[in-house]
């Protein structure tokens, strides 16, 4: 009944990677907000949505900002004090993707209110993640499950082969 840990856990990751990525995301989203609705913001937001999409659908190893971290930043740092399960940050990528797509719809359909709200929320999430090491999955996930009663994990996070 109460076996919380899946028998096969995915390969743990350096927790500083997702935080580094969230910092870049926050800067990109801030620039998008300042640019306001228009072609430059659209191009930047498409790039950001692709980054979220790769992190969410393919995995954190394919997330471009994560790649920048693992290729360029991590070799200059000392090894991480502890490793982390990749599923929580991957869930956060999925939430980011939802906001980015909502923002894109706002831009394309010329609904500036939708654009500003979606990007504003995404920016709050990215800032909390990078500055405070906030765990989005811990809060939103359970509320979502309670509200919808369906296992979001089976839709967004690949099921374990066990």
């Amino acid at each position: 009944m109460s076996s919380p840990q899946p028998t096969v856990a995915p390969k743990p990751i350096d927790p500083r990677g997702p935080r580094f990525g969230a910092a870049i995301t926050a800067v990109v989203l801030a620039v998008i907000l300042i640019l306001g609705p228009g072609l430059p913001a659209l191009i930047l937001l498409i790039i950001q949505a692709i980054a979220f999409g790769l992190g969410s659908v393919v995995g954190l190893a394919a997330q471009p900002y994560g790649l920048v971290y693992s290729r360029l930043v991590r070799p200059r740092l000392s090894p991480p004090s502890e490793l982390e399960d990749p599923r929580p940050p991957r869930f956060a990528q999925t939430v980011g993707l939802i906001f980015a797509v909502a923002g894109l719809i706002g831009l394309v359909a010329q609904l500036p209110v939708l654009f500003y709200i979606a990007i504003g929320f995404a920016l709050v999430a990215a800032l909390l993640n990078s500055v405070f090491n906030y765990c989005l999955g811990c809060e939103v996930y359970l509320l979502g499950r309670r509200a919808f009663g369906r296992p979001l994990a089976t839709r967004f996070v690949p099921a374990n082969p066990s």
Partner: protein
Amino acid sequence: MTGFIVLAIAVAVSVAFGLYRLLTDGRIRGARRRDAGLRLGAQELGQELGSSATFVQFSSAVCAPCRTASRLLTDVVRDAPAVAHIEVDAETRLDLVEQLNITRTPTVVLLDQHGVVRHRIVGAPRKPDLLHALHQVLTSAAA
């Protein structure tokens, strides 16, 4: 201009919320009023309670601090054979989540020897607070 305003609001909200969480996370709270008389047993939890106290930890797969909390509690109960640590997957036990009104993971609920809810800790717990709460439950049981 609108972009700058939204940016400023987002930064303000993030800082306020982040600081609030930093201050309140992992703090011990006494049982809430609606917890009064709420009791859990081996039947609900699927595991035997500890003979003097039980930590019931609600976790989920998308929660990084749950791992840390789990290690910490394992450590706390290692030297206390009368105290149990039961980890519950919140997702598969939505019935318990609803009953206890758990809103986020990790949430740790501390039960006394009768399974009565005595304390709850929302967010990543800290060891001194856990030991303090446990001490309270154990001493009130002895009295």
